[in-house]
């Protein structure tokens, strides 16, 4: 997270309220390092103070995040042609597409609030794999609502400790990402070994 940028945006959220909060979450959904989760936790604390209306902030924030996700889905969708030309014949690409389609809802839903670092790649893959837009938006809206309730709720509950809570939540998200990568590597390893058996070198004369 870019600290200066996120601090600048926090000042603007305090000054201009819900519209700026929506812009913040919109930029976050596009992958701009604005510290969207951090801001969401802060806004939860501000609403507890009565500085903002929680309903208005939640509504604007959700709208901003959904528009950003729809846009990054579209980027994947319109970049599909290039990716197909480049990787279309590769079995790994085809397998990855099939694998994603089978577990798409889980990937979309859980990357909104649990492994948020994978949200943008998920949006791009969903758009690029020809996943149905309406279905994507349904799981996206459910996941983003969960994100706003959970993270905003933490800020609301822990008030003056929201900075510490934000740091813990951020570290926890990264830890989960590490576990996902490790798990993927452990699952893919044996498959790779099976499809590439070790060549036996036969000595001449044997």
């Amino acid at each position: 997270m870019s600290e200066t940028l996120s601090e600048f945006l926090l000042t603007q959220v305090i000054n201009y309220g819900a519209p700026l909060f929506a812009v913040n979450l919109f930029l976050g959904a596009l992958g701009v390092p604005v510290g969207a989760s951090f801001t969401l936790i802060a806004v939860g604390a501000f609403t507890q103070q009565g500085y903002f209306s929680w309903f208005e902030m939640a509504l604007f924030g959700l709208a901003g995040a959904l528009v950003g996700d729809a846009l990054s889905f579209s980027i994947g969708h319109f970049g599909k042609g290039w990716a197909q030309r480049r990787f279309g014949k590769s079995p790994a690409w085809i397998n990855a597409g099939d694998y994603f389609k089978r577990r798409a809802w889980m990937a979309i839903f859980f990357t909104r609030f649990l492994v948020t670092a994978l949200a943008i790649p998920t949006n791009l893959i969903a758009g690029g794999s020809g996943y149905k837009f309406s279905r994507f938006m349904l799981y996206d809206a459910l996941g983003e609502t969960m994100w706003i309730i959970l993270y905003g709720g933490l800020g609301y509950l822990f008030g003056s400790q929201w900075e510490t809570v934000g740091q813990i939540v951020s570290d926890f998200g990264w830890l989960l990402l590490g576990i996902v990568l490790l798990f993927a590597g452990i699952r893919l390893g044996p498959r790779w070994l099976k499809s590439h058996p070790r060549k036996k070198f036969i000595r001449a004369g044997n």
Partner: protein
Amino acid sequence: MKGKIGVGLLIGSGLVIVALFGFRLMHEVRRWGSPPRPQPLATTTDVTLVREWMTIPYIAHTYAIPDGMLFEALGIPEKNNRKKSLQEINDEYFPAQDGFVITRLQDAILAFQRRETLPPNAPPVTTP
């Protein structure tokens, strides 16, 4: 070969991230103390929570203090300064004294809470 490198990268980066952020998380949780006690911001009187990105009207709301009193404590006009962060105000009016605005506001809040008069030790304001 590519697959082997990919699997190695996944496992390697996974291990590094788990070790790094696992350690950081453990450290943060320990520092926080247990059990965590929710502390609503609406009732805070703790002046150490004042940050550079905050604005004077927001601080006034947080500590339930008239914002005019905070502008007065800094000796700066309210007009055109309501939306500026404390860092911006410090850079603009007190460039020679890093962190002055935060310290002065903390003193002003504490004086207000104790119903005392703030000593007039604000340095001369630099006209921007």
